[in-house]
């Protein structure tokens, strides 16, 4: 096991730091599969009937809960295991994530063999979800330490992988299912086994390659700015102190509002474009794919930009531009302008992704590098909260509007205006951000391993 120890992952002199982002990407591209879980939804409702649902088959609501559980456990495990990940280092954390995530697939395959729904929840939802959470945070603090000059770009690159994972998983799972499908099988069971094996190998590449910089290492020729920006600290805040500060709560609100608003568009994208502009379901599917592309590229673009304009300014752009675009979408619908509608939704989704990828660097600026991974893990509970709050809010408002006699195409307007309100809450929270008071700074050794 010593191979997995933090001490054995310290990079030798001359190690190229650009080897670390692809290692992180190998993990994030794998766990990003979660975004494509919906490709299994319909086949999972036909495990007995094969061609159509038969008595005893699971219904769609039961199946969809698997994904929701996965996202809830992503947030919970990131919050609970953040300190452990910081202590043991990225290699053991990535290995554990690989075991849990691929193990989740294997257990789910057993669940399908016996048609046990509870085991599917336990396998993909709980165990796989813990793999998602640990995998998500495992490379973050390592990347920030390797790229003190460009922390936004570095974490943006990795978190871009989480958005991009669905691009690989969706066609891969569809191809595997059609390959294994027969008159007596939907092909999901062997697909789970194969995907579990592929993702284990892919994530292990990341675990084997990743290295942490030696204590005191700095990029060649880089000197920290003599005068730091107002919100960028050179001190460190312990995770147990950090999460009780007003800054943590404000950033939690910032992330939660940004994600909730993004989910509102992402979750309704397909019916929205069909009902507003009368496009076909196939074309609407293409639109959703296009939005995912904006989501992925936004993760890299906005996080990289934040290295130049600052984290707070980046979020100011998200909220101000977001409010304008959300308010504009209903007008685009009335004007019948599909192209500007697509563009507005694309920019919104790029900022949704950008919110995820810029937050680790924002946390680094505010709380220092010492426990940034663990603090990030706890902040991800905002994602879990938004994952529950967003869809419920949207469905309730929409159903209420339709019951009140509002036309389907217009029923989105109120939802979008409410999202403007949520973004305004995020904007105020971001404006209230101040540096952490010096009495909360960590005194003493900054070595993460000794801080426990």
């Amino acid at each position, binding site marked *: 096991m010593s191979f997995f120890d933090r001490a054995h992952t310290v990079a030798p002199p*001359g*190690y*190229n730091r*650009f*080897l670390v982002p*692809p*290692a992180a*990407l*190998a993990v994030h*591209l794998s766990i990003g599969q979660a975004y494509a879980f919906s490709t299994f939804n319909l086949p999972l409702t036909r495990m007995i009937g094969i061609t159509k649902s038969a008595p005893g088959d699971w219904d769609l609501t039961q199946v969809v809960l698997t994904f929701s559980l996965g996202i809830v456990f992503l947030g919970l495990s990131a919050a609970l295991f953040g300190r452990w990940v910081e202590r043991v280092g990225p290699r053991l954390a990535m290995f554990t994530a690989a075991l849990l995530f691929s193990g989740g697939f294997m257990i789910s395959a057993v669940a399908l063999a016996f048609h046990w729904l509870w085991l599917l929840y336990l396998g993909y939802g709980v165990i796989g979800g813990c793999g998602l959470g640990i995998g998500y945070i495992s490379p973050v603090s390592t990347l920030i330490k390797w790229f003190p000059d460009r922390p936004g770009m570095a974490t943006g690159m990795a978190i871009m*992988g989480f958005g*991009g994972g*669905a*691009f*690989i*998983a*969706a*066609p891969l799972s569809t191809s595997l299912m059609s390959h294994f499908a027969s008159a007596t099988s939907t092909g999901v069971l062997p697909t789970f086994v194969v995907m579990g094996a592929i993702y284990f190998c892919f994530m292990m*590449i990341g675990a084997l*390659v990743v290295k942490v910089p030696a204590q005191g290492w700095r990029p060649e020729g880089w000197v920290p700015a003599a005068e730091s920006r107002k919100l960028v600290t050179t001190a460190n805040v312990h995770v147990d102190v950090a999460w009780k500060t007003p800054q943590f709560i404000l950033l939690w609100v910032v992330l939660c509002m940004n994600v909730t608003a993004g989910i509102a568009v992402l979750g309704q994208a397909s019916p929205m474009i069909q009902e507003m502009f009368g*496009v076909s379901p*196939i*074309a*609407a*599917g*293409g*639109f959703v*794919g*296009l939005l*995912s*592309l904006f989501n992925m590229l936004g993760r890299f673009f906005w996080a990289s930009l934040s290295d130049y304009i600052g984290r707070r300014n980046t979020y100011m752009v998200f909220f101000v531009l977001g409010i304008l675009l959300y308010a504009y979408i209903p007008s685009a619908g009335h004007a019948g302008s599909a192209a500007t509608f*697509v563009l507005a939704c694309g920019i919104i989704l790029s900022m949704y992704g950008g919110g995820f990828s810029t937050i680790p660097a924002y946390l680094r600026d505010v709380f220092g590098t010492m426990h940034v991974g663990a603090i990030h893990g706890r902040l991800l509970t905002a994602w879990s909260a938004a994952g529950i709050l967003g869809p419920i809010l949207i469905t309730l408002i929409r159903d209420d509007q339709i019951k009140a006699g509002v036309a389907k195409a217009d029923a989105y307007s109120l939802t979008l205006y409410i999202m403007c309100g949520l973004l305004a809450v995020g904007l105020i929270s971001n404006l209230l951000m101040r540096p952490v008071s010096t009495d909360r700074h960590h005194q003493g050794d900054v070595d993460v391993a000794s801080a426990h």
Partner: protein
Amino acid sequence: MVARLIILWAIVGIPLLWGMEKTLESALKLFS
């Protein structure tokens, strides 16, 4: 080190580009 760097980026880049190409293919249906 450079060879290792190229191989590693290819390992993660090729599947990602493949997935992006598939997504763009389906997105084009929106405009056809």
